[in-house]
Structure formats: C-alpha cells, structure tokens
C-alpha cells in the first residue's frame, strides 16, 4: 500500500524532504514505517527514543496500524510557544 510520510524540523533537514510517498507492506504499523525510513536515512535513527508520530494529523503510537492512503508524520521534540 502507498502512504505519505510527513517530516518536520530537523527530520526534514536530515532527509531533505518535507513529504515523501512510500510503499509499505499491508498491515504495517507506524513503527514499521519508521524502521523502513531509518533504513533509507540512517541519520534519522538517533531520533527513535525521542520521536512522536501521528496518523492523519492525529497523534498515534508506534504500534498503531497504517492504512493505504494514510498520512504518517514523524515529529522531533517540540519547541513551540
């Protein structure tokens, strides 16, 4: 299935892309999408312990399932305000 990956702030700088389209196996979780992405961009791996993620603009845990057409976002630690 095909998903959109959204990357922000330093994650975007490290990959050079704010948005990527990727094929992932049916039944993949957010964590599996992340694992696939760190395979492609090893520099991202350091963010694993401090990562947040969202599916379709709603916070989701790494074990959340992903469906075809979903937008999966990965968020480094936040600094708004």
């Amino acid at each position, binding site marked *: 299935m095909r998903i959109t990956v*959204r990357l922000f702030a*330093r994650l975007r700088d490290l990959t050079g892309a704010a948005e990527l389209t990727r094929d992932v196996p049916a039944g993949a979780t957010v964590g599996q999408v992340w694992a696939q992405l760190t395979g492609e961009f090893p520099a991202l791996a350091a963010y694993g312990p401090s990562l*947040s993620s969202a599916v379709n*603009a709603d916070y989701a845990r790494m074990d959340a399932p992903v469906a075809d057409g979903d937008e999966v*976002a990965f968020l*480094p630690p*936040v600094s*708004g305000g």
Partner: protein
Amino acid sequence: MSVPLLAIGPAPIDVAALAATLAEEPAGRSLSDGAIVTFLGTVRNHNLGRAVQYLEYEAYEPLALRAFERIAAEAADRWPSVRLALHHRVGRLEIGEASIAIVTASPHRAEAFGACRYAIERVKQIAPIWKKEHFDGGDVWIEGAVADPDDATAREEAYRRACA
C-alpha cells in the same frame, strides 16, 4: 472584528482582536467575567548566550490545531468557568514579535491565571511546533519536549506550574 478562538498561521497576532472575540463569544458570557489574563510569548534577542537574529517557526498545522483543542478541553475540564483563546504564529519572526498569545477570561482571577499558565505549559509540551533559531554564526532547531498528549506526568507538571 471576529477571529477564531484557536488558530495557527503566518499572520501577525492581533491580541486585541483575540480578546475582543473572546469577549463576544458566547454572547453575553463576558458580562460575568471579572478577570482576563493574557500571555504573550515574544522573540528574545538572546538565548543560551547566543545573539539571536530571528526565529523561524514551523508547525504541523492540522495537528497543532487539534492539540490546541485538546488543551482548551483540558483547561475547561479543570477550570469550567474559564473561556480560552489561543493563537500561534509560524514563519519568520523578528525580535520582539509575538509567537503566541493566550487569553483566558473567568469570573474570578485564580481560574483565569491558572488556565492561562496551564495552556502555555501544555503548548510547550504537546503542540507540534518547532522553532529554528538563527543567531550570529549559525542556526539550530530547538528541541524541547517529546510530545505525548497522554503522558500523565507531563500534564501533572503543567498543573503544578499553573499552581492548580
């Protein structure tokens, strides 16, 4: 002039419009308010010993709006008498400009102060917003809290800081 109570975008923040909207919605409700507290976060010219030139804010806007809604709901849960408005800006911000404005209104001051402080603490904990600091000699993404809206410890810390 009416603006949304919760918003994020590149336009400069109009605190007066924000306060006016809060005063109007719902109609007549503000007549029972005796306390209005406003927090403005502004861009400082120094941070961690660095001379800041400007900041660049980036956000995952639809999720940021949902985070603001969550924060407003949490505040309403803890302080039912409080009404809250919150605007966050994104894009390039110069020194002295406001990145965030939070306005709370309530019959009594303790609740308005508490909810306003709580809201800014929660924004810093869970709003998907990032600032890149451009300083003399370079730039750096500031990374603060690991965003987890379900983290009860973080929420407790926000209540503690709100003196609630």
